């Protein structure tokens, strides 16, 4: 789901004259993908899970290390992903916790609480 916006391409010098301004300018429709706190968090999560694609040698063999979002609700943690726990409810390690504390969503929440500042590093 992108945002469509119309931008002006490179205009020739004649197009910049008073009369023919914008006449020769090329109009292009460019799709700009949204960039929100959620999409950035999702990108980071997918980068950890799919791009890095970490595997480990365990006593059950060569297995993919699951990446979990550590900050979800309790009912979701317990009932949704049953594969990440054994029959006693213990987590099956190794496991990569997503950097939930560093996520933009959480940091934005902290801003709203006045606890810290949202810092975006490029």
């Amino acid at each position, binding site marked *: 789901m992108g945002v469509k916006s119309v931008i002006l391409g490179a205009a020739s010098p004649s197009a910049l004259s008073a009369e023919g301004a914008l006449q020769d300018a090329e109009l292009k429709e460019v799709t700009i993908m949204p960039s929100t706190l*959620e999409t950035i*968090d*999702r990108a980071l*999560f997918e980068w950890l899970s799919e791009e890095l694609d970490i595997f480990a040698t365990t006593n059950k063999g060569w297995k993919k290390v699951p990446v979990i*979002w550590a*900050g*979800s*609700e*309790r*009912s*979701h*943690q*317990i*009932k*949704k992903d049953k594969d990440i726990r054994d029959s006693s409810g213990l987590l099956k390690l190794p496991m990569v916790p997503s950097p939930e504390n560093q996520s933009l*969503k959480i940091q934005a929440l902290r801003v709203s*609480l*006045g*606890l810290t500042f949202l810092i975006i590093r490029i």
Partner: protein
Amino acid sequence: MSNEWNQPSAPPPPLFLGKKERDLVKQVNDELIERVVGQTVVYYPVDISATNYHSLYGEAIEKTFLPPIRVYALVSWEGIQTKNIDALGLDKTSSISIHFHKRRLTEDQDLYVREGDFVLYGDIYYEVVSLSEPQQLFGQTDHKMEITAKCIAAREGLFDGS
């Protein structure tokens, strides 16, 4: 009639700690909790299949729950306390501990206590945050006596069972 002695295929159960004794303990505890103590909570199991969780964050604004169940249990009221949040000012917290009779729940009411479910005690909704099973019956590993649920008050934005 043969006078030959046959060895049983399996060893006999413990002499005084078998099924009959466990059933007696269950019956006594049922009566104690329901007819003497008489405390009840309403249990709201969150329906994981019908609740629309966010695909990344695992959070749901609207939670769907299975039909609520009235449960007799021993409830330890731990009061309402004032808490100060730096940026927001005064807040209130409340917590309870619920001691469920495990066999009554699982065998008679077909109810399984899980973290993240909600209970109504009085007029406050609580969320189950941790569970423990601190006692075995007669030291038998397959027979746990109780389930203790530590619960904290749920904000209105988290759950509304009305």
